[in-house]
């Protein structure tokens, strides 16, 4: 018995919220304070990696269309890749700073996949609106980790990255399958059933 899709979105929203808050705290207090406890450096990359692993069950259990399955698979992979790269950098197993680019890559791929896998128009239903919104937010948000790779000490870009995750989580929390958006529900969507 599969949980409704929005429940899964809410679970991941919680993960992204934690991720965003960790990054925001890090950006506000700076490296010196954040790394007073060694484990904190692993906190958000570990969370990103774990969320990537947890995306695999979503991929294999939600198979109502090929493109849906492929979209979830691509999110699982890019989240694992970005988390793993950051963990490798923190641990000192990776040294090249360009490994940080896996994060904007993950953003860009995720955003594009969000837009491609959502088959309905913006105002079809709330979930469709949110998928479009998330897709564009994530694509534009890719700028923050991209610039932060080259300006690692800039609190502005790091905060932007953190806030992108927070916005993403809020959008995911708003998700409900067939529910109206701005009081509108396309007649093609049928009746609101949850």
């Amino acid at each position, binding site marked *: 018995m599969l949980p409704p899709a929005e429940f899964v979105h809410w679970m991941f929203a919680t993960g992204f919220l934690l991720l965003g808050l960790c990054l925001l705290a890090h950006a506000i207090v700076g490296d010196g304070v954040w790394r007073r406890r060694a484990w904190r450096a692993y906190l958000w990359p570990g969370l990103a*990696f774990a969320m990537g*692993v947890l995306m*695999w*069950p979503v*991929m*294999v*259990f939600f*198979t*109502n*269309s*090929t*493109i849906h*399955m*492929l979209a979830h*698979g691509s999110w*699982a992979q890019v989240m*694992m890749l970005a988390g*793993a790269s950051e*963990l*490798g950098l923190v*641990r000192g*197993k990776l040294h090249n700073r360009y490994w940080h680019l896996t994060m904007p890559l993950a953003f860009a791929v995720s955003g*594009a996949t969000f*837009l*491609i896998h*959502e*088959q*309905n*128009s*913006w105002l*079809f239903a709330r979930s*469709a609106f949110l998928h*479009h919104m998330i*897709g564009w937010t994530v*694509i534009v948000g890719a700028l923050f980790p991209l610039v932060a790779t080259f300006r690692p000490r800039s609190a502005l870009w790091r905060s932007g990255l953190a806030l992108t995750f927070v916005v993403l989580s809020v959008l995911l929390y708003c998700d409900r*399958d*067939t529910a109206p958006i701005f009081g509108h529900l396309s*007649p*093609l*969507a*049928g009746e609101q*059933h949850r």
Partner: protein
Amino acid sequence: MKRLVTVCYLVALALALPGTAWAHAALMKTTPAFAQRLERSPAFVQLRFDQSVSALPNAITVYTDKGRVVSGPARPGADRRVVTAPLQALPRGVYTVRWRVVSADSHSVAGVFTFGVRHRAPPATEAFGAAGPTTAEHVVRWLYFLALALLAGGLGFRLLVARGPLPPQAERRFYRIVGVGAVGVIEVGILAFLLRAEDALQLPFTNFLYGDLSPLASARFGVAFVTMTLGFALVSALLFLAWLTERRVLLWPALLLALGFASGLSLSGHSAVDAGSSWLSELADWAHLAAASLWVGGLVQLAFVVWPLAPELRRSAFLRFSKLATALIVILLSAGIYLSVLRLPHLSDLWSEGYGQVLIVKLGLVSLALLWGAAHHFVVRPALEQGAPLFSGLPRSLIGESAVGMAILLAAAVLVESKPPAQPPAKPLNAAATKR
């Protein structure tokens, strides 16, 4: 610069368009259910979607196993999310439902499922119209075996043969090779599932993207895909953590899980579903696959990691691997012979049946590999044990042996995708008693 702006504009356009162009409905429920066995002929087939759909008269077509159409024209219900097609009175047999409806935005979605009337329904991969494995599926299956060998064989080699610390370069290369195997198993597994689904659905590519895969995911093959994908994702995570934390102990659960989840192939293949299959045939199939993976993957590690990057370990690694390979070959041959006898009831099937002919090619390659391995075991190994210098041609010889191993995996991939000859009908258990 102008070109860059144009490219950016096109990318933005491509991302903006799908939202309005690719709307489609998802199938929520069917009557009969996927692969359901019914005791009486159903009066209709009904599909329920999550959105309103338009149904053309041929929206639902039900076929017998011979391809005869037994359904009437489909009609939309009062609820526009429901489509129904009447059925003739169906005799005992298996039936394939192919459906295609038009979403309200004029784009079509499609799917396939099966059911049986007083008969077990076949999986959707064996629906009427599915053409069976193609050359692409053989190649993909081979790549899967190779990836599995790199992963499981690499882990086995590191834990059982090259047990101590490796020089940093060799350690890095070990993780790269095993990592390629881990990623390969997942990616190629997805590709294999999609190829099988495409064959069952029989749709053009753009429609296939919106094809409903749930009947396939609930078939035996699909369950194996789901379980193995999750299992190998976990193996990848363990492998990464072992690399990150430099804790080799994490490789043990990775190896055990990799070998364990490889059983998904045995539990969904010929050894599990064909006539004459039993738990013993499944176990033999798994042992055959696991031994082959450990052998080929171990050879790759010996030839490409230890030999070029850890010269001080060459002698000890070769001697240890030689012992391990002997045990693996015994398992490989015992399980292989048992499975061959099981699947080919007559000796003449070897040359008269397509399955048997591929098996002959595989046996030829296995014989070559055995001769090669025997030369290593009976000539090189005693010399090395007596302290003789390492032969300069040994690395090339190891690469040659692993290449033959990979060729055997290709033959195995074709065999797995081929249909063994039909088993002779079983004699009645009490035939002798009846005669008496």
